[in-house]
């Protein structure tokens, strides 16, 4: 059957142009979604079962949840996550922003500084925890060094103080992540519209004013990404704590991931561990939901003001 010249190829090409993108777009999206959904669903399911050493899909009701909520390790872990999370995120954001602003002042040796601040993120958490464990140890680390230098009244034994050990973890965490925050903020600062900056300068705005009105709004999207990165670091903190304090003097620096690992794998209580994991993720919703609503409100505000 002879077709009109060019008619078949065009139709075929149009068909292809419609199907092919679908074949390419959907698989990775579907896989990425399915992974999150299935793994979460499986964990939720197991948390309602009687699983111990291996998954055992018999129903166990809310038993695991009540057991974990009543468990001292779990309660301590949550308090610690809150303290550590808030301090870690706030300090890292502050230090990162501070360093970015300082470097942005056209300092000499910027490359060297930037490399120095950034390298810690390349190191694994286990190493960070181990080395900071040595440094913060009063008998062999900083306190001892200062004593040897003559100032014997100096005290820096937070690591072995059950009420202060958590701050040592904050220090190590900030050390590791603030360079990354700095790098992202620096990128944001560098991409601020030069024209806007010039306009502000012409208007005679002070440096602080300029930052507040022009710079910070521009780096808003970067801020969101940095926040997400830091939150997920905080929630998933495990290796750092294990290497630094092994859960702290006694149980005082235990965190939810340690409780999850401990119950799931050390004690052979998969269901209890899963319940702890589900509750960890739910607590995340407590943080993310308000943020999501806030973003929604902002977008609506911007739309109103723009229109």
């Amino acid at each position, binding site marked *: 059957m002879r077709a009109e010249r060019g008619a078949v190829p065009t139709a075929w090409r149009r068909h292809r142009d419609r199907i092919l993108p679908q074949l390419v777009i959907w698989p990775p999206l579907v896989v990425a979604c399915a992974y999150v959904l299935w793994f979460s669903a499986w964990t939720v399911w197991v948390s309602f079962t009687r699983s111990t050493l291996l998954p055992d899909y018999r129903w166990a009701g809310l038993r695991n949840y009540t057991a974990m909520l009543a468990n*001292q390790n779990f309660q301590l872990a949550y308090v610690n996550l809150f303290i550590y999370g808030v301090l870690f995120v706030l300090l890292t954001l502050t230090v990162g922003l501070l360093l970015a602003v300082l470097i942005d002042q056209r300092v000499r040796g910027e490359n060297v500084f930037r490399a120095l601040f950034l390298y810690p993120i390349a190191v694994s958490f286990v190493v960070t925890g181990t080395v900071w464990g040595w440094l913060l*140890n009063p008998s062999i680390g900083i306190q001892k060094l200062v004593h040897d230098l003559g100032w014997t009244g100096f005290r820096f034994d937070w690591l*072995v103080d059950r009420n202060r050990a958590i701050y040592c973890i904050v220090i190590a965490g900030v050390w590791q992540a603030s360079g990354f925050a700095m790098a992202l903020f620096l990128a944001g600062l560098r991409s601020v519209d030069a024209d806007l900056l010039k306009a502000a300068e012409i208007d005679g705005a002070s440096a602080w004013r300029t930052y507040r009105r022009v710079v910070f709004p521009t780096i808003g999207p970067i801020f969101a990404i940095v926040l997400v990165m830091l939150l997920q670091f905080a929630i998933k903190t495990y290796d750092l704590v294990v290497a630094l304090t092994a859960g702290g003097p006694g149980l005082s620096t235990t965190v939810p991931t340690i409780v999850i*690992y401990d119950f799931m*794998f*050390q004690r*052979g209580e998969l269901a209890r561990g899963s319940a702890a994991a589900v509750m960890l993720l739910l607590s995340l919703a407590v943080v993310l939901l308000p943020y999501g609503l806030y973003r929604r409100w902002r977008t609506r505000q911007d739309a109103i003001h723009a229109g």
Partner: protein
Amino acid sequence: MGRNAADGTESGNIPALSRRTLLAAGTAALAVPKLARADEVKPKVTVISQWSSGSDGAAITALGKEFENEGGSWEHDPVPGFTTAMMNKLRAQIIAGDPPAASQLKGPEIAAWSKIAPVVDLDALVKQAGYEAVVPAELARLSKPEGHWIALPIQAYRINTLFVSKKAADRVGLTKLPATWAEFNAVAEKMKAAGVTPVANGGITWDDGMKWEIALCGISPAAYRKAVMELDDGALKGPEVLAAFRQTRKLADWSDPGFAGQHYSVFIPRYMKGDIGMLLMGGWAQGVFKHAGFQFSDYLIGPAPQDDGKIAFDLNSDEFIFWKKKQPEFQAGQKLLADIVMRKDFGPMYCTITGSIPVRTDTDLSAPGFSDGQREAAHAMATAMGDNRVVLSLAHNMAQPNQVAAAMLDVLTEFVHDKQISPEQGQKKLVEAVDNVR
């Protein structure tokens, strides 16, 4: 050949292709070797353990070499890290349907894990080797949770061992080890007065648990057995446990102020210099000292204080559990491995490397590879066995399954690191914790 055509056609009109197939199949059938008999198969084992380095790694490597010398094929998969990582790998292999031929496991976990995957019945082999008679009853009991041998102990350690730094001992004029807790406490006070930190232990969870259990074992092995191994409520609420908490509080107070979260090896330099005096640790510390370049003459070694003067032995051991495998080469390998482990000369081969005690009480320890410390500990084990004064370690997951042990250790480690918890409160918390997981 009397078979159907390879392509299954039954009509008389056999196509040329299938005739060729017939011929090929026939030739192939002739080429297949006759089914190998079990004892013609090369024995093979896959082993999972956490022993990737140090003396443990060296010992299991030596075992592997011996296995290969006897004609076997040895495949060891060390999982670096703590025991939990090894158990993770084991769990993953079991879920994946491919358990190793043998894996490290210990204590009540042997019973727990044997329920989730099929294990090999070793009764015949054990009977043949006459093994049960020469192994401590506690270990035999752990190895046969349902009455059949499914695991074999490899090595034993004494937990309640006391090491005193020679230099520290000299500073307070100490010439022999304190025999009771009262004597120990007196020595500690003397050391403190002389500016020596009395206790060299670290402050991680198992170390904290060990301090308490050594105290309790020294106060009363009978109370230990009832409270820790049988979880008897009366014993847990009893005076011996309270006394153990009191002694543990003393031990914590006498430790280095920075000991929280530290591994005891961190204190070895100062211990050898005589700035810290006494270490309550398992027999493996000997190997650690040796590794650090210290001599036997740098420390005094012996049993930890026993208030009633008779020997008691706080036992820790490692075992191999054998998982059921269908393939004949693995079955042969398991038989070979079991044979090697049960032999009389296994102890001298393995334990001289790790510094542990051979499991067989009839082992000849006069070989030069053994140290006096090992000989003394082995003798203690044999004696204690006779008097039924062998107890199982709590801190090293021998006395109770992991859930129970972990709950108890949580209480103990919190007690050690929180001075605000009084011994009475500590005991109450322990009782509560046990009730929660009973």
